[in-house]
């Protein structure tokens, strides 16, 4: 117990970094994902090509590799990010691609008839989007978004590769120093707590939207 209270402060400060990456990625990637998802559905071909290549690159290569490229690769062409910003940039790029795919699917799942029905009632495009399309899309995408959110909690551990002090790294340091697995057990417990909170929040949200089918 004494040992636990000794290493807990460093683990908690590592958790701070993990949460900071997590929240900023969510806050920025979801709105960006909506925009990119809408972009995939436009009739302007050059835009959809660019987006498709971007999504292909982001989903087709490991996030770990993308982190390395952003932090060690981009300086070669003169773009230098500090560690934290590099990590955030890579995460946002990666997760926006996934969210965009989810929103594209959600938008395409709305039957054309819903738009036509709104049109003959002479609702404007904006009214149709706000009152009919968005509420339906949110309900459709929620489970998939939830999956990505849970993944993100754990993916954030990849930032160790560019030397950021997150939760996993804090545990790693303690494990190497004290030659015991106990810090890693604590790390696992903290990750489980974080994902449990996410799961609960997502359940709540899904339940909130379960009043219609």
């Amino acid at each position, binding site marked *: 117990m004494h040992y636990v209270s000794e290493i807990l402060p460093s683990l908690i400060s590592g958790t701070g970094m993990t949460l900071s990456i997590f929240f900023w990625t969510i806050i920025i990637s979801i709105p960006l994902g909506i925009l990119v998802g809408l972009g995939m559905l436009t009739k302007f071909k050059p835009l959809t090509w660019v987006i498709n290549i971007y999504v292909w690159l982001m989903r087709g290569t490991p996030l770990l590799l993308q982190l390395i490229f952003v932090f060690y690769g981009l300086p070669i062409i003169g773009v230098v990010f500090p560690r934290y910003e590099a990590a955030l940039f890579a995460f946002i790029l990666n997760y926006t691609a996934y969210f965009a795919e989810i929103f594209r699917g959600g938008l395409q799942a709305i039957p054309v008839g819903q738009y036509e*029905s709104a049109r003959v009632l002479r609702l404007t495009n904006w009214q149709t989007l706000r009152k009919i399309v968005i509420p339906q899309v949110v309900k459709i995408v929620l489970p998939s978004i939830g999956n990505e959110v849970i993944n993100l909690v754990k993916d954030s551990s990849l930032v160790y590769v560019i030397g950021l002090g997150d939760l996993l790294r804090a545990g790693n340091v303690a494990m190497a120093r004290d030659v015991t697995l106990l810090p890693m057990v604590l790390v696992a417990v903290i990750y489980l707590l974080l994902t449990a909170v996410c799961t609960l929040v997502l359940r709540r949200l899904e339940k909130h939207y379960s009043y219609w089918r």
Partner: protein
Amino acid sequence: MLELKNISKKFDGKVILDNVNLTVKDGQILTIVGPSGAGKTTLLRCISGLAPVDGGQFLLDGKAFDPATNRDNDSVIGVVFQDFQLFPNLTVLQNVTLAPTMVLKKDAQAVTTEARNLLKRLNLDGKADLYPYELSGGQKQRVAIVRALAMHPKLLCYDEPTSALDPDLRHEVEQIILNLKQEGMTQIVVTHDIPFAENIADQMLRVEPKQN
């Protein structure tokens, strides 16, 4: 009175509607019948503004109008879709009141009162706060009719109103359409169900597939 003059419509160079001329007098029922693929639904989509026409003219009470761009605050055409297309995320009442409050900018209280009266008249008492998934097919259709009526259209269009219903509900739809006629509603009904069409029609239009 709605008049169509030389309305034509093509899809990828294929002629679907070739110089259609017709007149629907106020308070009358026009049925459009014909085999699948003859362009019945296309004609209805043109009249309701969902598909632009390639030629011809629409006249409403003698004045030219374009259903595809007509978006002022004077509602003209209501549509009851084959699969109803109620909004699943809204209650029955919200389905009905959404457009009158947002588009016609009517007072919410007045719109709600009117919607409840309309629901009652179409035998949907007590369904106002249900969601569409809780309704039967016939109930959904009646909600779709109420939703269209709440916009006070000059003309109400139905696309295959009997196709998604049990056979014994056909008579009920007939009754609703004939009751609305009594109240002076002008109606256009697209159907492949000839006996049904004959029972309600003041005027029947047969469309045949174009050979080309």
